[in-house]
């Protein structure tokens, strides 16, 4: 069993498809993303130059870094384009009623 520590992150009604929200939990910045396939959460800091991805843009399932344009797949954190090569950490997400919960201790 992996550790699990699901914490409240946002209300479903406050995060329409195409939007993101940065959550600070356990000293980590986590980016919660709502895409057509559901809710996903990844590190908010780009694995390349630590820029905040919350200042970037979500396009489909890609989050794009505002500094150098690196793209990551928010579904699993994979780096999709240079200059990023390392993935973002990906966090489990659970929806309970109107609450979106993130596993901050994956």
């Amino acid at each position, binding site marked *: 069993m992996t550790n699990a520590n699901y914490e409240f992150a946002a209300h479903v009604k406050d995060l329409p498809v*195409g939007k993101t929200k940065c959550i600070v939990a356990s000293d980590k910045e986590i980016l919660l993303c709502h895409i057509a396939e559901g809710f996903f959460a990844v590190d908010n800091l780009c694995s390349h130059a630590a820029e905040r991805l919350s200042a*970037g843009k979500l*396009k489909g*399932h890609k989050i794009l870094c505002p*500094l*150098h*344009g690196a793209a990551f797949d928010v579904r699993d954190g994979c780096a999709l384009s240079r*200059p990023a090569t390392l993935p973002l950490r990906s966090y489990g997400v659970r929806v309970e009623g109107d609450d979106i919960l993130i596993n901050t201790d994956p």
Partner: protein
Amino acid sequence: MTQTTLDPGSARAPGPSIADTLRTDAIPAPAPLLETNYSFLGNTDLDPQRYTSKDYFQLEMDKVWTKNWQWACREEHLQDVGDNHVYDIGDFSVIIVRVDESTVKAYLNSCTHRGTRLLGATGSGYSQAFTCPFHGWSWELSGSLRHVPGRWDFPHISDETHSLKEVSCESWGGFIFINIDPNAAPLAESMDVIPEHFSHFPLHQRRIKLHVEKILPANWKAAQEAFMEAYHNFETHDSPNGANAQYDVFGSYVSRFIHNIGNYSPQSLSDYPGDKWRDPPLTEQELLSMLAVEQRPLKDGETARAVAAASMRKNLGAELDVDFSQTSDSIMLDSIEYHMFPNMFFFPGVLVPMVYRFRPLGNDVDKCIFDLMILEPIPEGADHPEPPEPIRLEIEQSYTEVEELGWLGKVYDEDTGNLQLQQQGFKIARKGITLGNYQEARIRRVHMTLDEMMEK
């Protein structure tokens, strides 16, 4: 045979023409659709090496792809400042970016320091500046130099010498076009009748509903030519429509076909094999049943075409919140396809609202990328939503894997299913490629324009 007594290219399929149908539609077609424009372009064979020769391919790169306008993305891909789109053609790669609310610019995707490609991905992206992944040189969205690490070592550079290299960029109909040629003439000079015709059925007021990008095992010309005539409909699609399609050539850059949906000409199939759809011909009720529209028993005198068009006006109009009350039967239903040299297709129709683009895959003479978009009308004045990311299909994948294509998935599989065989056949052909004088005239026009480009 009677054909030998006619001037070449003047023979037509027996039975009523497309123009005859359009004249009797319940809501008449706009003027450009009533225009016919064909003249005989010759009947000599084409050399099959045009589709297979690496030398010919290189000539195309040098004289066609780097000299002609081609759309790279839609304006809706570039809604926010910093939105960008990377378009690749052969060895070239171009970044198109929204610089501010009223400015879109295009740049060669290459560092002005030591040449490195700046954005590695293709398609849509976003950033507030461009940074080279090699030494970290960066540029503003406007293309001017932003930062050069260790600037003390580069006293010999300036914005004038080391800004990003601009590429000509214009927009039309909601599309962003680029031209790599530094001396490119304005886009309008390559569009013949398109701006005037499409003023009757504008494309900017549409959104990308679906974008499928598939790799095809054929030269880009062979692939696009599979979509330039409806002569193949009987054999490839097992379909009665198309044998009497109308073909128009408007100039060096633009041609068109119109093929009716919701009716057909049994007479046009008079020398096709068997009696299928000819004797007995399809009834109007059967014709209606072949269309993806609301079904109901037809009353005496009602035609499938009129009922289908009326049903689409009502139902699709309500679904999309778009007023189709004055939209002609032809625009509602027909497959109307404009081709713009070298590789672009625009459909003004509502039931058949496609956009196609064909281009080589890198420098591979035997493979190409086929972009298929469905452009759905949006209400007047409405904002464009963020466009969907393209669904990418490899050679061996089927269009039926794209659920959103519905019944069209099978049709596109049929259209592209012959290409590998044709590309292979080109290589062993002992004679030239023969074209019909009328039905395949659009293909000939593209090759004539290619010839003109090669001579420049």
